[in-house]
């Protein structure tokens, strides 16, 4: 039965509908795979009993012919999503044994549509990181290794558990979130497909907040079609999130296989970095050639403020984080350190509960918002953000349908290899993805090839606001041309 885990979501849907297997069988196959892959540390909480109960319930519904679009599909949930009755920690000690009394909007929509929860997935603490190394549960292993090497590599971050679990066939898809690249970068590092939809497309309600003007949830899956199926269930208007947009959710799957003939694809010259590895450059040209062969037109475009996106992000995101994370005070939930007075209680709890990266970002955020520095840092960064968004608007105004870029500046690296001495070294991972969050646009990462060491590399497509369908159509062209990539099992 183990080969049930290698099905795509679309294939599993067919097998369930044809009664070739039941959701319980599909779920059990994944639960066994999870058990056998604990060395990857992708799951921080396994919920086998709940999974089996959900699978049995959905099997009954399937038998009655009353099945939702994701009926019986086992998924992993990033530990940033509140799940009722199931511990939710954002992989931070400060949330301790927090057990939500409510369900996030996105996960409740997935259960509404018949999906089955296998457990909670590891991530960087409060989604702050690009390698899944800041989690209080320890790092996640990438199922991919360099050819001929036993070194465990990072799966990227912050949705490292999601990407690793999907690539290792532990779940058929996973929820993820993306504030500066946290869906697309791990997807690229693991040869999975990840889409960050337009800001406002998915509800943020019930997701642990990092930087609210940038945070957006999306799926990680093993094919473009699978990602489209998942996004359809995750997206939609939610009155509980004031930034959620009231626009009908299209049938994203219908965009798969649609002709891309005549589409105008922008190639931004500012993404051609000095010292960019030749294989990334080559991958990028290949991707462009595939789209051209499918009938798209390539045009060089300019996004002049690209290089300022990452520094502006490292002002805006920590500023919002310092404000959002003020709620962790040791009083209402989570960890509490004893103290003589209330101020010490806050200070000791937060010193003990937050990891080093979170402390650093909260402090930088506090500094850039503090009296005397607000204008020089925060206000200036928000103005730069306006310019970054305008770059994209100018580009789209010239008739460009989507923009093609590399997803990451390198392939996956070893655990502990980056950012030890200088945090900025790690931040540079998000150089191609962060612009998209700053402008609130949709972006998809699709596996497109391998580097010389046999590690996967991805391409990113950036779309106009709320035109995720274009990204699915174009993404599938790349997928068809590049083929699918599966890691050799070593765990």
């Amino acid at each position, binding site marked *: 039965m183990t080969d049930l885990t290698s099905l795509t979501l679309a294939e599993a849907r067919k097998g369930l509908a044809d009664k070739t297997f039941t959701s319980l069988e599909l779920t059990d196959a994944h639960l066994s795979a999870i058990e056998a892959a604990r060395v990857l540390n992708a799951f921080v909480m396994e919920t086998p009993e709940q999974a089996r109960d959900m699978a049995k319930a959905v099997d009954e519904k399937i038998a009655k012919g009353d099945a939702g679009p994701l009926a019986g599909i086992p998924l992993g949930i990033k530990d940033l999503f509140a799940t009722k009755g199931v511990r939710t920690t954002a992989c931070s000690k400060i949330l301790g*044994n927090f*057990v939500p*009394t409510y369900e996030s909007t996105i996960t409740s929509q997935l259960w509404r549509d018949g999906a089955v929860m296998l457990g909670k997935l590891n991530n960087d603490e409060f989604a702050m990181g690009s390698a899944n190394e800041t989690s209080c549960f320890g790092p996640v292993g990438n199922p991919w290794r360099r050819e001929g090497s036993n070194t465990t590599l990072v799966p990227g971050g912050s949705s490292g558990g999601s990407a690793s679990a999907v690539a290792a066939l532990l779940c058929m898809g996973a929820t993820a979130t993306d504030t500066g690249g946290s869906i697309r970068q791990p997807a690229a590092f693991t040869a999975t497909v990840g889409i960050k939809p*337009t*800001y*406002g497309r998915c509800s943020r309600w019930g997701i642990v907040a990092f930087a609210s*003007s940038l945070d957006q949830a999306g799926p990680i899956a093993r094919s473009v079609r699978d990602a489209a199926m998942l996004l359809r269930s995750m997206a939609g208007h939610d*009155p509980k999130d*004031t*930034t959620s947009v*009231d626009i009908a959710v299209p049938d994203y799957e219908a965009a798969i296989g649609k002709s891309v003939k005549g589409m105008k694809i922008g190639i931004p010259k500012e993404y051609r970095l000095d010292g960019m590895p030749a294989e990334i450059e080559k991958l990028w040209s290949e991707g462009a050639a595939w789209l051209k062969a499918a009938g798209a037109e390539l045009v060089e475009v300019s996004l002049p*403020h690209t*290089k*300022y996106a990452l*520094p*502006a992000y*490292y*002002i805006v995101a920590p500023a919002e984080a310092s404000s959002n994370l*003020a709620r962790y*005070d*040791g*009083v*209402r*939930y*989570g*960890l*509490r350190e004893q103290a*003589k*007075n*209330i*101020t*010490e*209680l*806050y*200070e*000791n709890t*937060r*010193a003990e509960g*937050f990891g080093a990266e979170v402390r*650093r970002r*909260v*402090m*930088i*955020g*506090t*500094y850039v918002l503090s009296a005397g520095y607000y204008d020089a*840092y925060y206000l*200036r960064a*928000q*103005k*730069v953000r*306006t*310019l970054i*968004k305008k770059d994209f608007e100018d580009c789209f105004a010239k008739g460009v349908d989507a923009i093609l870029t590399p997803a990451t500046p390198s392939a996956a690296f070893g655990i502990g290899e980056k950012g030890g001495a200088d*945090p*900025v070294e790690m*931040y540079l991972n998000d150089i191609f993805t962060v612009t998209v969050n700053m*402008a*609130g646009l949709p972006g998809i990462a699709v596996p497109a090839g391998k580097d010389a060491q046999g590690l996967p590399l991805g391409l990113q497509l950036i779309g106009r*606001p709320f035109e995720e369908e274009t990204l699915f159509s174009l993404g599938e062209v790349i997928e068809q041309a590049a083929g699918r990539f599966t890691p050799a099992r070593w765990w």
Partner: protein
Amino acid sequence: MSVDAATVRRIAHLARIAVSEGEVPHLQGELNAMLDFVEQLSEVNVEGVEPMTSVTLMQMKKRQDVVNDGEIADDIVANAPATEGHFFLVPKVVE
């Protein structure tokens, strides 16, 4: 711009994060590395540019002024580290 040790201590206090004396030099180095990195923003001409307040062009939605939630005090205190009835407990604040 860069921060000195006194500023690191001040920021830590503003952020309500206890920092030991031994951690200050290390934190100072890391914060300054971040500040060095963002320094390049000073070369951007932002004259006449409006700061971004909302990334999507939409009107702030307004809710009906009605009670649609509440009566869940048990849920609210369910995860609190110290409570008495429906109250959160903290060290004495008022003498």
